[in-house]
């Protein structure tokens, strides 16, 4: 029985929001860890289908903001409206159910498993055959496994990582681990994909590949992307709109050219004393 390679399965599940409309609205979010103020009163919105970059010097609160969006941290103040539902506290795996997936700054893959299993883990939220079927394996459980395996094989083909399908991820070079992690996030068919410095520590060629993948995901699959990245060249090329954070506050928000020339951003990066 052949796997019928349908390329349409790669398109993100439609979440009932038209392209360009509001997908997520972050309003007055503040987050602190016992006195340390990581984020203070930040608001910005993300439109469906765009690549929204979040940039800022180290320690500006970028990753913390990402963790708030996908429910890992609960902000003390402020709310996040995602696909029309407003919420402040949300368990991470509920955020996933609503269609938020992410990659991590320093690769959080499951070291004990192979590339295929890591990406299949991204599908687990959509697989639900109960334990009885799993015990028998042949039958509904295996059919479900194969159904999701075909989706994962689409992603493996899309990210051109067929040659490392069975390799334990612990053995992979850094660049490939990042790609597997992107694969895992794509496997969750998110409507919002949070990328935390997808190109950190990559050489030029790997960066070009990753940019191509990100563009393909955004254009071909229509997945909205929130991108944290330091490499200005990449940010300017890829993103439609940019939010600039500094010391936990928002200092600029708008299209790349406009943000690039704003004095506040230049100061932040060149280090004017606060």
């Amino acid at each position, binding site marked *: 029985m052949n796997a019928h390679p349908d390329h349409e399965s790669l398109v993100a599940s439609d979440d009932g929001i038209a392209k360009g409309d509001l997908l997520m609205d972050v309003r007055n979010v503040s987050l602190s*860890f*016992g006195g340390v103020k990581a984020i203070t009163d930040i608001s910005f919105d993300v439109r469906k289908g765009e690549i929204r970059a979040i940039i800022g010097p180290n320690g500006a609160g970028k*990753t913390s903001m990402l*963790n708030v969006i996908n429910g*890992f941290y609960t902000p003390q103040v402020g709310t996040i409206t995602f696909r029309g539902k407003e919420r402040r506290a949300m368990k991470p795996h509920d955020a996933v159910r609503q269609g938020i997936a992410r990659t*991590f*700054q320093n690769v*959080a893959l499951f070291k004990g498993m192979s590339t295929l299993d890591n990406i299949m883990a991204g599908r687990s939220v959509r697989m639900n055959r109960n334990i009885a079927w799993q015990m028998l394996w042949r039958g509904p459980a295996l059919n479900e496994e194969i159904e999701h395996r075909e989706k994962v094989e689409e992603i493996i083909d899309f990210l051109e990582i067929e040659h490392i399908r069975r390799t334990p991820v612990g053995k992979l070079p850094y660049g490939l681990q990042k790609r597997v992690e992107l694969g895992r996030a794509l496997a969750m068919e998110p409507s919002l994909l949070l990328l935390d410095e997808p190109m950190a520590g990559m050489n030029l060629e790997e960066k070009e590949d990753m940019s191509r993948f990100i563009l393909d995901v955004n254009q071909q699959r229509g997945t909205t992307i929130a991108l944290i990245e330091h490499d200005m060249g990449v940010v300017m090329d890829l993103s439609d709109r940019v939010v600039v954070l500094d010391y936990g506050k928002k200092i600029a928000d708008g299209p790349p050219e406009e943000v690039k020339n704003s004095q506040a951003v230049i100061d932040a990066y060149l280090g004017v004393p606060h």
Partner: protein
Amino acid sequence: MEMLHSILVAPFADMAEAPDFFLQVVWEGLVSGVLYALIALGFVLIYKSSRIFNFAQGIMVVFAALTLVGLHENGVPALLAVPLTLVVMFFLAVGIERVVLRPLVNQPDIILFMATIGITLFLIGLGETIFGGANKIMITEQLGIPTGSWVLEPFGGFVSIEQRDMTAVVGAVLLVIALLLFLNKSKMGRAIRALGDDHQAALSVGISLSTIWVLVWFISGIIALATGIVWGARAGVSFALEVIALKALPVLMLGGLESVTGAIVGGLAIGILEKVFEIYWGQPLLGGNTEAWFAYMLALLVLLVRPQGLFGEKIIERV
């Protein structure tokens, strides 16, 4: 209703009724608490310096006691047997570092934890083979530990304090003070604390891992010997001690794996509460012998409230 009364009211009534008996119970609890604290101290010292959860601390106590008594039985005078045992403990520390710890330097914590289980078994087997499995009597008199007891009459009642218990408490306090001074003030002490955070970092700063580890295991060997003597004096030297030494685990859970004060306070708390619960709740209501599980249940409840224990640092998950 009557059930509630016997749980919540009756025990406190008994305490008030016989304060001297209550004091006696608290004292007995305190003494066993000191022993738990000493063992826990050995754990903390090793965990603080090498991130190793040393399961073998309990058996080292037994092994030290056995060696001491074994040497004495073979004609070595008591006061000479103690330094000799310390030498044995030193070589044990060198052996453990060389054979077990050095090859496993960068392994994950779970692997090191299991290695200490391996050491535990090995030492049990070794001890039994050399000294035979039978129980032995601690040579308390020969070590000059007074064996008499004092009698006090607080609240017109009657409380007897064993002198050897008092020496145990005093000895423990001295040991703890010496340890704290050593850790915080001396050069070696700082190296031990630095090592705890990150093996590689410490290595890169030029702290030689192997000497520090030998030193740390030797110090916990000394503590083990002291504990062995005191414990042996109360309950005789036997391998059953190893299971009781497990009681140090809840102490660590309560006090946090890294803090010396946590180990002491935790040890005393568990010792006292355990005894009190046994006497006033365990025997009348639950058929006694609750000391077997009380410490673990207590530690479990505390952990549910504060996952990092009373004194541990707050665990922040960084992604």
